[in-house]
């Protein structure tokens, strides 16, 4: 899908699904950590909810809940999928 404009994970709203396309992270350690946690290109994750103070945000990734700060979710690109079933 080269025509689809990729969006940042940080732009996705609570409750939305998000399919990861790429991680644009220079810091090798961080990238590895995110990959290990399941933020892998091709995977679909769900935006669960924001912390009371607005950041970080919790995501459901391969059946677990992981929180990321905006600094990280800004660099995860992919496609927002609005959940029509709800």
């Amino acid at each position: 899908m080269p025509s689809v404009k990729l969006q940042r994970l940080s732009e996705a709203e609570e409750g939305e699904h998000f399919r990861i396309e790429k991680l644009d992270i220079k810091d090798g350690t961080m990238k590895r950590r995110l990959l290990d946690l399941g933020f892998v290109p091709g995977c679909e994750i769900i935006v669960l909810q924001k912390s009371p103070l607005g950041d970080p945000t919790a995501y459901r990734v391969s059946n677990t809940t992981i929180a990321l700060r905006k600094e990280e979710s800004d660099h995860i690109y992919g496609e927002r999928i609005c959940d029509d079933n709800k």
Partner: protein
Amino acid sequence: MTTNEYTVALAGNPNTGKSTLFNVLTGLSQHTGNWPGKTVVYAEGFFTYNHNRYKMVDLPGTYSLYSNSADEEVARNFIIFGKPDVTIVVLDATALERNLNLALQVLEMTSSVIVCLNLMDEAKKKGIRIDAGKLAEKLGVPVVPISARNKEGIDALLKTIDAMVCGKIKTKPIVVRYSPEIEQCMEKLIPRVKEVIGDAYPARWVALRLLDGDMSLLHAFYKLFPSKKEATVYACDGSAKSI
């Protein structure tokens, strides 16, 4: 009746109940809490089963063994260089998918693996059903469903450990197929790895780690084979980097 001593390593993601299982088996009381990272230093304990004495090592909980952090390095080095007789990978049955990643990584490193599906009670409550037999078939190693905190399945686990150290279980760990590109590189690299480090270490895994540029593994090998020549190189590696 001879008594042998075997080493059993416990690996697993953080928060999968490794410490609980450790406490159940060794009778020790390591602190357990529900937050990631509470086992910061690895703990050792002992137990005896069927006339054999076991040393149990509770490795730090890690998401992976690709040495992103000191914890992962500790766990990886123990499995590779400590050569435990059995490595138990404790998986959280309620989040099997992510947990399996670690199991697959461990299976690349050693074939004496028992996969322990912990938190089966939680999984049941959540309506998750796991076909342990099929999983064992897929992974090529024994899979034991347990609930460490309810002390369920512990006996089956002990029996499996016993059978494994006695050589009664033949495992055939699954081999993860990588992209053709990576597989090709590995094909070239594996003979070279065998040439350099011999057969004592899993060549395919070492090749994979080298492709990934794992510096910490390199350093671990440096320390392991300090042939005179290399020891000097290593010693002056910092100051006179002529290579």
